[in-house]
């Protein structure tokens, strides 16, 4: 009962939240002086940049928890989080390239932020490859947990890349404050929260599906004796 309730709340919150943020992005936030309407893609670009960090941090933590406790629950969450995180990360790369073309004049620049984001994507794509190339559940959980820990190095590097190196990519959150107008910033924040809800919702659903798959497999094994 409670399970279903939390799920429904998350689902409704992300659905309503994303529509509200889209509305705010187009009707509440003012038009950017320099970039004009092109800047609107930023409102989705920023959340889909932050949420993968959260997702991969979840992978990191659950991987450690799995190795410590050997509870299959953790490895399921880790795997589901990689899947959902990677989809959102793909959205990051896509919106990023679309944003680049009108603002920088090219689809892609090999500068630290973009490069580290792409490497992060490749690392977690490798995680999925690893997941699929081991059949035994226990062994698979162990190996992917180790790789989940190793791959996490890319997250702080990607996050810090625009702080460590001079890049073309703009820096929004600085020690001095936030480099955005208040309505723009509020819209971004609402979008970020809604996107996080969507991530949590999808993560839950994915873990449910994995559990059901396992149940079916168990039943099949039982029937086949």
């Amino acid at each position: 009962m409670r399970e279903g309730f939390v799920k429904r709340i998350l689902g409704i919150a992300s659905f309503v939240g994303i529509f509200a943020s889209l509305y705010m992005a187009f009707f509440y936030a003012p038009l950017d002086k320099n970039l004009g309407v092109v800047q609107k893609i930023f409102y989705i670009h920023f959340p889909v940049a932050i949420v993968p960090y959260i997702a991969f941090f979840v992978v990191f933590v659950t991987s450690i928890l799995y190795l410590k406790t050997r509870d299959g629950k953790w490895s399921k969450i880790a795997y589901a989080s990689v899947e959902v995180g990677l989809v959102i990360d793909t959205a990051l790369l896509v919106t990023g390239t679309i944003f680049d073309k009108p603002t920088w004049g090219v689809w892609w620049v090999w500068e630290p932020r973009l490069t580290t984001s792409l490497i992060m994507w490749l690392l977690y794509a490798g995680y999925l490859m690893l997941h699929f190339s081991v059949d035994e559940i226990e062994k698979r959980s162990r190996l992917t947990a180790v790789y989940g820990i190793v791959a996490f190095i890319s997250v702080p590097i990607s996050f810090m890349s625009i702080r460590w190196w001079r890049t073309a990519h703009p820096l929004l959150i600085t020690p001095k404050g936030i480099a955005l107008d208040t309505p723009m910033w509020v819209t971004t924040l609402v979008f970020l929260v809604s996107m996080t809800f969507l991530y949590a919702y999808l993560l839950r659903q994915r873990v449910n599906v994995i559990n059901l798959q396992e149940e079916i497999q168990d039943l099949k094994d039982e029937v086949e004796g």
Partner: protein
Amino acid sequence: MNYMRHIMALVQKDIVAELRTKEMLNSMVLFVLLTMVVFNFAFGSGSAMEAVSSGLLWVAFMFAAILGLNRVFVHEKDEGCLDGLMLCPMDRSAIYFSKAISNFVFLTLVELIAFPVFTIFFVQKSFLSHLWFLIIILLLSNVGISAVGTLLSAVSINTKARDLMLPILFLPVIVPILVAAVKSTELVLTASAIDVQKFETDMIVWLRTLAIYDIIFVLVGFLTFEYVVEE
């Protein structure tokens, strides 16, 4: 102290086994040389080559490292030797360190042979005054490559795809080492062109990157290896 003795014994075993056949060393050296030749055709010689030469060097070394890393656990796994090692009354991380060290030794040997050939082919300027930096770069990079590579080699040998898996897992993780190694090698090879002050500050940044990366991954390998090999 016993721990060190275990590690050294295992390293000795690996080195003796390799020197009997020289299978891995020979193929790694030849591979590096072939890569240089192929790159030469791909980029043409002359000024274009000079600009990309340090990148070429490290791409060749990286691929050679993958070639070697793929072999690390193959014999152990196929002949059931790994099971024997696991039964030994010693810490599992000793296996990790011994494998990482023998990897480090082989990689360094390959580079010692391949690097002079590289300079003959692609480097016109003299960089002997900065030779020490180059040696530090090579050693630090090899520590990182061996630390990450040994761990991921153990991971990939346990999968269905086996040696297909290693490059996919290893290359994205090793990118920071590759960047730092390429940039610092470039500094050495073009050293005479820029002033000493800038050379030193830049060099320290890259060497520090390599060192931090090494420390992180030696620790990660040490802490997680036992989970990879357990049955």
